[in-house]
């Protein structure tokens, strides 16, 4: 009577087929999918451009600042950029539904802009990147962070050097 138990179990379970085109699809939480870029937290170190095996990521200098472009149509979802990014500015979402018509081929781009700013100390034009202060001791307070961020790289180094460290 083994087949009857299997039959009853299958009746109870229902079909195993995913409902996908007619319903929601099962997506794992940590699926490596489409790249997402946050310009606010980017340090501008361009390590992601270097480690990308498919050359999907490209930084370019424009009059407004530095632009970030990731073309999803050549990205192989390896996750190198996310792994090497020091500030988690670039990460992979679990969005896999990227099928599109061929006319939209070159619109499948993740775009970001790191804008130019004027240094509050010396008045030079520099990129408004996130400062590299991960190893600063003691850690920067939020006011100090915004002060560092408003400066150009040279003035940032000066600021961090002259910072009063409580004994």
């Amino acid at each position, binding site marked *: 009577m083994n087949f009857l138990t299997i039959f009853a179990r299958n009746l109870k379970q229902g079909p195993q087929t995913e409902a996908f*085109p007619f319903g929601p699809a099962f997506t794992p939480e940590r699926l490596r999918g489409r790249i997402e870029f946050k310009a606010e937290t980017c340090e501008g170190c361009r390590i992601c451009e270097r480690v990308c095996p498919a050359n999907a990521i490209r930084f370019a200098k424009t009059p407004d600042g530095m632009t970030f472009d990731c073309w999803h*149509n*050549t*990205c192989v979802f390896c996750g190198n950029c996310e792994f090497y990014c020091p500030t988690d500015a670039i990460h992979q979402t679990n969005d*896999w539904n*990227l099928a599109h018509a*061929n006319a939209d081929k070159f619109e499948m781009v993740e775009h970001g802009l790191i804008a130019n700013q004027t240094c509050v100390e010396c008045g030079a034009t520099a990129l408004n990147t996130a400062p590299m202060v991960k190893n600063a001791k003691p850690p920067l307070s939020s006011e100090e962070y915004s002060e560092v961020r408003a400066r150009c790289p040279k003035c940032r180094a000066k600021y961090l050097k002259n910072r009063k460290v409580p004994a």
Partner: protein
Amino acid sequence: MGLIPDFKKIATRSPWLYRINAGSCNGCDVEMAVTALIPRYDVERLGCQYCGSPKHADIVLISGPLTVRVKDAVLRLYEEIPEPKVTVAVGVCPISGGIFRESYAVLAPIDQYIPIDVNVPGCPPRPQAIIAGVAKAIEIWRERL
């Protein structure tokens, strides 16, 4: 019910799928096989079926970056498929070349040689993404009929 007339439309004219491997690493081909053969994904719900001959095909799934060596064979196969046909590029290789881009042995992107209608990027794409691409292709195919 909106789905039932749609289902009837698909059932009356079911597109048959044909796979062309244009120098693929077999990753996308495995995913395409999974899309069709495993009951969990089951592309046959959309009325599609894989066929063995290009002469029976309606929707062509192309994987691989079109290597120099297979170019003539792929173009000949593509010519054999009767009109109207809808072409789906599966994986990043036929769309842009992926990691093989700018290689001397690869002629990607494939849309310089073959008109492509739907792109499904991924390395390889998930079976659900392939199903989404096929669903898009079926819509285009119905318009062309």
